């Protein structure tokens, strides 16, 4: 989240109003990081998060837990020619970032992440002792 702090500290108010973001290079871009769309669901053993992050390869992906916050970051990479100029652009930033607050029953040390074809899947298991237990009723 260091880059966000930089924006707050160094960004002019006009740029902030325009939703501008500061890259690590110190150059202004039209927009801040891309907020990837996600699906989140829960089953009895844990929570699964799926995020669309096209253009991110494994070595440019960063999934981490900071305190109780899950942070998902990725660097978009396109194969560009040196002398290319833009004709059209839906995507105007090269950094994906999104974060989620986790709760105490989740086992953050056992988070698993998998990236395939630009889709990130993060599995966050619940602590075994805190999973819902089925209570059997004995007939006696």
């Amino acid at each position, binding site marked *: 989240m260091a880059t966000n702090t930089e924006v707050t500290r160094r960004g002019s108010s006009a740029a902030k109003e325009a939703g501008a973001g500061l890259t*690590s290079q110190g150059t202004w871009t039209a927009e801040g990081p891309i907020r990837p769309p*996600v699906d989140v669901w829960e089953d009895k053993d844990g929570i699964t998060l799926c995020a669309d992050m*096209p253009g991110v390869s494994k070595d440019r992906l*960063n999934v981490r837990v900071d305190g109780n916050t899950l942070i998902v970051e990725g660097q978009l990479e396109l194969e560009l020619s040196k002398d290319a100029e833009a004709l059209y652009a839906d995507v105007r930033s090269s950094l994906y970032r999104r974060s989620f607050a986790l709760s105490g029953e989740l086992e953050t040390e056992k988070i698993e992440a998998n990236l395939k074809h*630009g889709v990130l899947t993060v599995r966050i298991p619940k602590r075994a002792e805190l999973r819902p237990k089925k209570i059997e009723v004995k007939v006696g």
Partner: protein
Amino acid sequence: MFGIPMPGSVFDDLWRLQQEVDELFGSWSAPLGIRSLPRGSFPAVNIGQTPERVDVYLFAPGIDPKSLDISLQQNLLTVSGNREIKIEEDVDYYRQERFGGEFRRVMSLPEDVDPDRVQAKYADGIVQISIERRESARPRQIQIH
């Protein structure tokens, strides 16, 4: 990871890449094509050009590229397909933001693209379609005799 710049580190490469994409597409602003879709439509599209070719980038994560229908008629590029998102059973959903279902996008490219010289590849959820431009349209050096 993307915090404090450290000159000479392996991260230089990352910043260079980031700057290239941001410089090229970050400040893009031009009149919209009549067939353009609102931003947020699936798949997102970026288009870059050089004197030699036009590169179309389709942001299509989690799609079998063979299921995509890509066609180029003169300078109109049409992409259609179906993105199937598996819906889990016996779970509770909190968010369902990812696009699922059928999609179609039509892009109007520069008129000098050559429909016979097209290449497409898929990596990390991005389809890159490279279309060569006709020689006659390229800028030529004019010799003074």
